[in-house]
């Protein structure tokens, strides 16, 4: 059975909410953190309701809504989300009120909205949808496992219309915390020149990206979702490469058939060498390389942005210059794209997407 991606919705630091355009206009930022642009779309809700929503829920809902509208289907039979950090801002708010008010007279709303599954739950509520609802929360695997769950559901016949997505929000406080772990650049950098400088750390980011998966092609079909693989706590380059090859092989592909590799390069000196070390083993004769994190920043579910970019490339049969890192061979047809991402060099993921045929 083939799994088709028949709808997309992306809210990011770029103007990605219009499903018909593809990075035609690119926003650049000087700083250490990128945040989402407010999407210029009608969220389909009344103003009063919209004002009460947290930013996480609002942007999550809008991304899901764009996706549902794009797919022309408002009745998913599975809603599956992946988020590494979950509801950051509301958790902070409740935590700070605990300190401020010494455990008394606390506002309940931030607590209510602090649960990791709040976006998927709110989407279900707004759609009046009683179907399967799941929330994955495992760091840099959260989106991958949401995709995997969607595949399982479709292949087992439990579902036929899956809404699945990945999202994470960055807040000022969360930036301070993670900055202490040296994840980010010491100095402000222009995101479009992220790869021009070699340094420790990268730029923080965020995004909300949804996909509509079905077991049949539609007039909207973007791509076929072939495979998802996650490798936990693996530092051995040879083993990572062997698994990447296994992922290709079990889908009847050879390295030479991969037209583009979307890599999670983020401008961090140590982290970026991992891609080179692993991929030179998988593709000894070279590969066309693209990257996405300079456009949306680094966050735990940024592979959802990469998946959006890859399926757009497959649909439009073009990889825009802004995504290109290295083109060794300009191929006329783009048939297969492999997304490879890692977190801290130990957790790795592969997502394999193909042209629907």
């Amino acid at each position, binding site marked *: 059975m083939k799994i088709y991606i028949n709808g997309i919705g992306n809210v990011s630091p770029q103007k990605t909410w219009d499903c018909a355009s593809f990075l035609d206009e690119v926003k650049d930022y000087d700083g250490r953190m990128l945040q989402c642009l407010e999407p210029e779309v009608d969220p389909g809700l009344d103003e009063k309701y919209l004002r009460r929503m947290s930013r996480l829920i609002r942007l999550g809902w809008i991304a899901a809504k764009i996706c549902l509208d794009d797919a022309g289907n408002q009745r998913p039979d599975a*809603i599956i989300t992946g988020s*590494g*950090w*979950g509801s950051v801002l509301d*958790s902070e708010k*409740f*935590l*700070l009120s*605990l*300190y401020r008010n*010494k*455990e*008394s007279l*606390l*506002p*309940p709303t931030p*607590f*209510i*909205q*602090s*649960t*990791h*599954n*709040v976006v*998927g*739950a*709110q989407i*279900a*509520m707004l*759609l*009046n*949808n*009683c*179907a*399967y*609802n*799941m*929330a*994955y*929360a*495992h*760091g840099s*695997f*959260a989106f991958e*496992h949401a995709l995997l*769950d969607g595949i*399982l559901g479709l*292949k*087992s016949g439990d579902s036929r219309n899956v809404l699945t997505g990945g999202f994470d929000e960055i807040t000022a*406080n969360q930036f*301070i*915390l*993670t900055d*202490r*772990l040296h994840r980010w650049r010491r100095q402000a950098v222009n995101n479009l020149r992220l790869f021009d400088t070699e340094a420790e750390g990268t730029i923080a980011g965020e995004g909300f990206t949804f996909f509509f998966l079905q077991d049949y092609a539609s007039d909207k079909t973007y791509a076929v979702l072939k495979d998802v693989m*996650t*490798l*936990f*706590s693996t530092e051995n380059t040879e083993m990572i490469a062997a698994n990447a090859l296994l992922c290709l092989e079990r889908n009847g592909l050879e390295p030479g058939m991969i037209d583009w590799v979307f890599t999670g390069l983020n401008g961090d000196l140590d982290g970026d060498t991992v891609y080179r070390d692993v991929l030179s083993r998988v593709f000894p004769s070279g590969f066309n390389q693209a990257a996405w994190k300079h456009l949306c920043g680094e966050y*735990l579910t940024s592979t959802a942005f990469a998946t959006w970019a890859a399926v757009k490339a497959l649909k439009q049969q073009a990889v825009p210059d802004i995504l290109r890192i290295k083109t060794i061979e300009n191929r006329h047809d783009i048939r297969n794209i492999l997304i490879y991402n890692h977190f801290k060099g130990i957790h790795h993921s592969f997502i394999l997407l193909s042209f629907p045929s």
Partner: protein
Amino acid sequence: MAKRVFVTGCGIITSIGNNLEENLKSLTSGRSGIGKITLLETVHRNALPAGEIRLRDEELARILGIKLREGLTRTALLGMIAAEEAVRNAGINLHDGLRTGLISGSTVGGMVATEKYYPDFLENDSRNAWIEANESSESTERIARHLGIKDFVSTINTACSSSANVIMTGARLIRAGMLDRVIAGGADALSIFTINGFNTLMIYDREPCKPFDELRNGLNLGEGAAYLVLEAEDRTGPRLPLCELSGYGNSTDAHHQTALSPEGTGPHLAMKLALERGGLEPGDISYINMHGTATINNDLSEGMGMLTLFGEKIPPFSSTKPFTGHLLGASGAVEAVFSILSIRHDTVWPNLNFNTPMKEFGFFPARHAIQGSGIRHVLSNSFGFGGNNTSLVFSSI
């Protein structure tokens, strides 16, 4: 034909025992673990009772034979103890070449540390070792490393239904042939974040909770962890399974972020799906281990859902939360273990603290343990914020 999924081992730690045997003893003797909070630093110590495990983090680490290091949370320690027991109980060798996954559910996760050190996180570098523990995958990763599991590691967080969803997901991965076995469960420690959260919602009872009682007045929180070893039927070899995970179902109530619909739409749907998956009729169910948090809303909605599905023939049912308190992300796994113990020891566990039947219903929970009724199929319910409802069916083999 999808593979059958067997449960071949379990492990548990709660306020009524540090392992399977102790939990069984407390269930059998009707001993509750709810009492005054003594370890957690909170202003509510004397006001709000909870199912606290009376062991400090150092003592938990000692049980594991490991050193307590910076960045190792209580959630992870509890999870490691229960997961380790589950593996031992199943008698499996995790390094025999079979594909093993670890999936864990947690809602509190690293918040137990974050709530202590957050001002430091914001202002200085003194507590940096705890910052990463803030991510919900932290406890899962600790458990995976402790046991040496690498093939598949994942975390689910759907609030109070988390670990029931973990068990369902584990079964689905096995049925699909992706994994041979999965260590599936959840861990959650007591935290001031959640105690204050539920207290603020005015659904935290100042007395021990009374599920399905007309005078019920909210929940008590608890802490602990539980894990099951799920294996594909053709991978258990000569080892005898404890029972089969025969059904599972998940639904959304789509009513309110923190309240279930008064008609029990979501609970009914989850139970119905679980029975259908197991090829069972309502009359086949011998016992229902209810979600039964003792909030006004949950018990009414769950009872209505049960009534819709079972009609006049309501099987024996009880909530075991008066024993342990509500373990949030771990409750589904803890109650799965209690359901399995129910099958293995042919006992319906009592619903402690019950006195007055709810005026909406003509039925009431088991007040005392019922032994020897011939338990074959046990339904276990777990419902969470966001209207997330999951039901599991465990069956004797």
